[in-house]
């Protein structure tokens, strides 16, 4: 028991970040599941984090209420944003959402009420490991129920061929919008949890590279199943810890090595494992059976 406790104390923050990153990866998965590539989630995360942090700092509301408010605020903004933006095709949706994310970040940088670029500090640490993983478990349960439901099939149909899905009578706009809003809410939740775990929020934490990180978790893990994004988040969040150990023994500076390895892994996954690392066993199995046959 003592060993297990030691392990938790040492890696508490790493475990917490895995949970938060898994939520963020799921928020990107929400839109990817109907074939839409949105990079707005760092912006939504910022809105959620600031909402929750401001409520905690200025009111006496319980933590659960501030968290829910942090999820609702970006969701409410996602509706009017999503309606025009989701009509854009593929890459243009990505660009428009990059623009949105940067506008949110720069807005926060210029907002004196929240200390501009410095952000808010000394937020009480109210998020515990169990809160983070409870939220993650609820999100995973929701996605597991979604698969195989009427809505789940509709999303798959939209991902494969949007025009055909519409011809079949699926309300593609409503389906895409609801996943966009769901993604915004999840990103906001993750933002609120992170703010109450790391004591602080600052605009620099929600920049373009954060949005890219979330996308990378989802893609590396595998965006064809709701289990992929959390696996990708866990893998890539633990990677720096492992690389730090390797880097110090080989004598390389950890920063460049970490960047290089995560870039190389992403490239390898896109090229050789298009369905992510969760498809690895299936893919490997297929390879061996093919070999046996030939």
């Amino acid at each position, binding site marked *: 028991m003592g060993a297990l406790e030691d392990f938790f104390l040492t890696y508490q923050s790493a475990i917490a970040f895995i949970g938060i990153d898994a939520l963020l990866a799921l928020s990107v998965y929400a839109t990817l599941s109907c074939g839409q590539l949105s990079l707005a989630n760092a912006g939504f995360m910022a809105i959620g984090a600031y909402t929750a942090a401001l409520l905690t700092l200025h009111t006496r509301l319980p933590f659960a209420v501030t968290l829910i408010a942090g999820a609702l605020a970006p969701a409410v903004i996602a509706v009017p944003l999503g309606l025009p*933006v989701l009509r*854009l*095709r*593929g890459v243009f949706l990505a660009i428009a959402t990059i*623009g949105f994310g940067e506008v949110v970040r720069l807005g926060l940088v210029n907002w004196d009420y929240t200390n501009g670029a410095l952000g808010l500090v000394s937020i009480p640490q109210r998020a515990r490991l169990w809160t983070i993983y409870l939220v993650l478990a609820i999100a995973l349960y929701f996605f597991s129920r979604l698969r195989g439901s009427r809505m789940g099939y509709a999303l798959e149909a939209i991902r494969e061929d949007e025009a055909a899905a519409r011809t079949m009578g699926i309300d593609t706009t409503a389906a895409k919008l609801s996943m966009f809003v769901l993604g915004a809410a999840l990103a906001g939740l993750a933002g609120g949890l992170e703010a109450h775990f790391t004591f602080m929020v600052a605009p620099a934490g929600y920049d373009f590279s954060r949005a890219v990180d979330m996308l990378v978790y989802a893609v590396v893990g595998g965006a064809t199943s709701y289990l992929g994004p959390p696996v990708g988040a866990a893998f890539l969040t633990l990677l720096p810890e492992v690389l730090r150990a390797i880097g110090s023994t080989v004598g390389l500076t950890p*920063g460049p090595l970490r*960047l*290089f390895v995560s*870039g190389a892994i992403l490239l390898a996954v896109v090229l050789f494992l*298009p369905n992510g690392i969760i498809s690895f066993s299936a893919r490997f199995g297929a390879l061996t059976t093919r070999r046996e046959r030939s």
Partner: protein
Amino acid sequence: MGQQVINGFFLGSIYALFAVGYTLVFGVLDILNLAHQAVFMLGAFCALALVGGLHLSFALALPLAVLFSGAMGILLDRIAFRPLRGRAHSNMSGLISSIAAATIFEAIALQIFGPDVSRFPFGSFPDRQFRVAGAVVSTIQLTIVAVSVVLMALLTYLLKKTRLGRQIRAVAESPRAARILGINVDRVIAASFFISSALGGAAGVLFALAFNNLSPDMGRSVELKGLAVIILGGMGSVTGAVTAGFAIGLIEVFTVAYLGSSYRDAVSFAVLFLVLLVWPRGLFGRVALREA
């Protein structure tokens, strides 16, 4: 006022040069190449290594760095785009593999040059300032505008008048039809990447010369500015990218002058966002942005 116009024009010429390469690859492949900013950064560092390490003159370092960037473009095509060609959703996975390639390039620059700001050695480019009609112009600014205008004119000539240019335009129209007509599509795409990246690298060298401030993540802010430029200009349109590059440069300089420097980027993104929502074709675009 005159000074602001000159500064905007000068900044805009770098944005335009960067965005022309960006939009060229998009026009040909329908892929957003997010590694363009990394090639921009590599071009700048290559020039720095040649000038600072090998003590070459700047006039020699610029073309060498441009060639190097072009070669990086061909490498980029080989590792990140060519393997995906013909797969389903290849423009989505191409976007992601270009992010991966950008990360790898950035890691290499970080390993070689370190995370701190690098600068050209003092006096490696003679800078003299003189007054024209009440505004101050420097030789560096003039060089930058001249180089970028010449390069953009060369690109226009190449696309309009040469055999390769016709082939590039044919592939942009329809890769399948181009292949039936006997065009080696893979070679034309590789050539487009060479041209695009060479121009991106040249923009990087000029940017480094203008601000004398090089770091492995220097391309990131320009990348987002470049997106605003190609959207405003109309995706895939070289003329549009040039016009919009100058427009964004001027907008940025006037924003700083009249609204304050904290809003300099916000205005470009507001432009990007509004153009996409209200007027998605941009100034000179012809591609369909929305599905039927």
